[in-house]
């Protein structure tokens, strides 16, 4: 197992396209790091630079303090699980899993023992003599994992390994990967565009956009304290509601005018809005922080809007309504009796309210943290 260090990494392609800008990250031993972001944000490129499949244009990449920029992929002691699994179609599962050891001239008996051991962990014993085409998607995925595990590398790299699986299997494999990380205690770098995978698996998440790192922190931190509008919108599902709000000062109190509803801010939030009086900021509130406000008018600030759509998901329901011209979502318990056409009263949990500068899109609460 190993620690990784990425210092001022840049990736500029021959055609001048700048894919990754000044990427800095220190990965500690046994960490589960997630690179997350929309398509084209540079997360896979960064992973491929770590693997040695792409050249690093500028910066330094070190594994256990040793510079790896120009070291061949085979000499970096890493294993990678690809999105398409990349299993060798002409080899059996056993040969696929033992291929890397065979190349390293490990004695056949030792290879067999290791393959058998990993096959047992991944429940692949029955399929060892099959070719990949005779396996289901989930089994292929497990073989790809097995191929990586057998080598006992310093670092595991996973490039969207679950994206080809159906929803049910994806949840199952997600749990399996979490268990494996626990069991093997390996350093893992995992790329995904699925924020649920990011939230459930990662010890730390690197949020990227347009080749730039937006924020690096634990899932809880990113969820509760996003540094900018992008992170706030990307992390969490359904995504955070964003509303234009005008800052007003009345005496010692600071109010936010959201779609005609004056909302008095608590002191800490008011402090963050100093100098914004009369200006418009973006208020962000997660769907689960919009509660059914009926009868709570005394304790909470409430807003009213007609319910346009109600989606029942089983244990909970999503209520959609429009506020200040923007579509908003509230996540409530499924037994809340608010239906389409009814006037919804929503209570805002002001402690959870996020505030962003409309121009820079940076969090105005960021300096507090």
């Amino acid at each position, binding site marked *: 197992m190993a620690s990784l260090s990425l210092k001022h990494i840049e990736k500029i392609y021959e055609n001048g396209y700048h894919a990754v800008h000044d990427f800095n990250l220190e990965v500690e031993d046994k960490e589960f790091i997630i690179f997350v972001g929309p398509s084209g944000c540079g997360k896979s490129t960064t992973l491929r630079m770590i693997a040695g499949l792409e050249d690093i244009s500028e910066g330094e990449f070190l594994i256990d303090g040793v510079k790896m920029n120009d070291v061949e992929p*085979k000499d970096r002691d890493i294993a990678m699980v690809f999105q398409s699994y990349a299993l060798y179609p002409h080899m059996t599962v056993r040969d696929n899993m033992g291929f890397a050891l065979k190349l390293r001239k490990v004695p056949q008996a030792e290879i067999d023992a290791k393959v058998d051991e990993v096959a047992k962990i991944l429940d692949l014993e029955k399929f060892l003599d099959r070719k990949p085409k005779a396996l289901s998607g989930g089994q292929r995925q497990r073989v790809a994992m097995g191929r990586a595990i057998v080598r006992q590398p310093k670092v595991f790299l996973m490039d969207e390994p679950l994206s080809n699986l159906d929803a049910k299997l994806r949840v199952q494999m997600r749990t399996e990967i979490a268990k494996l990380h626990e069991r093997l205690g390996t350093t893992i770098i995992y790329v995904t565009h699925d924020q649920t995978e990011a939230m459930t698996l990662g010890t730390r998440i690197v949020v990227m956009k347009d080749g730039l790192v937006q924020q690096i922190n634990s899932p809880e931190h990113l969820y509760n304290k996003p540094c900018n509008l992008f992170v706030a919108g990307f992390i969490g599902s359904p995504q955070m509601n964003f509303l234009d709000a005008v800052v007003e000062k009345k005496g010692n109190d600071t109010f936010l005018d959201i779609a005609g509803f004056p909302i008095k801010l608590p002191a800490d939030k008011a402090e963050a809005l100093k100098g914004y009086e009369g200006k418009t900021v973006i208020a962000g509130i997660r769907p689960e922080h919009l509660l059914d406000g009926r009868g709570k008018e005394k304790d909470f600030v409430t807003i009213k809007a007609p319910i346009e759509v109600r989606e029942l998901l089983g244990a909970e329901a999503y209520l959609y309504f429009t506020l200040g011209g923007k579509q908003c979502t509230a996540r409530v318990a499924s037994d809340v009796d608010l239906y389409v056409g009814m006037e919804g009263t929503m209570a805002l949990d002001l402690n959870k309210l996020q505030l962003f500068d409309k121009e820079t899109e940076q969090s105005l609460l960021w300096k507090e943290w």
Partner: protein
Amino acid sequence: MTQNEKAAAAKKRSHAIMIIVLVLLFILFIIPFILVVINVFKTKGDILSNPMALIGAHGFTLQNFPEAMAKMNFFNVFKNSLIITILSTILTILVSAMASFVIVRNGKWKFCSGIFALMVASMVIPFQVLMVPLVSVYGGIFGVLNHRITLILMHTGFSVSMATFMFHGAIHTNIPLELEEAALIDGCSRWQTFWKVVFPLLKPTIATVTIIDAMAFWNDYLLPSLVLTDKSLYTIPIATQAFYGTYSTDIGLVMAALLLAMLPILILYLFLQKYIVAGVTSGAVKG
């Protein structure tokens, strides 16, 4: 008749026409083969008197085989054909598979795309155009005619463009880059990646190229007749010339020689047949 019945009848009719055309074509192609097979077991007189009879008036005979084999020095010419065909085919496959791998994976490099374009362009030049300069250059200037290796290299040179074109398609569409990357991470060098991962996956294309080229090399008459004038180096097609006299042709011996010439390539075809369709279509259709 309802519209549905009309459509069904039309469908049936077109199906029947298609079957008839196929059967006619099959008969057209199989007749020469059948003629060889039925006449090879007859005496020369029987063949001339009734070439269509299944068994001649003098009955079933195997006499044509030993006679033909002796006259054409069969074992020697068979050996020559075998050496030339096998080595030319192997060389063609190795050179073109490796070339196409480099061309596909360095497609952005203009040198590679230029070489590939030249190769494709060379496929449209008929052999007859090159025939005379080829012999005059290799015979007159270099003096390397009458060597098996000369013919082998010429065969390879002429067939490598088509083979590279086929391998190019197969690698481009059927071998994902991720497989090679997985191999690189697993510990392969570029060279190992090609031999351990890419080459085994080209099996259908290898089979197709083997059949197409081995057949062409085995049956080739023109090029060997220009390059090999020494009788001891003759291949089977040139050796069959021995049966065609100025005034008469011993047709029974010709048939025996043809059958002997046909058999190895027929066996090879039957052996590799299951790969042919896969090989021809691979690269044509994106999977």
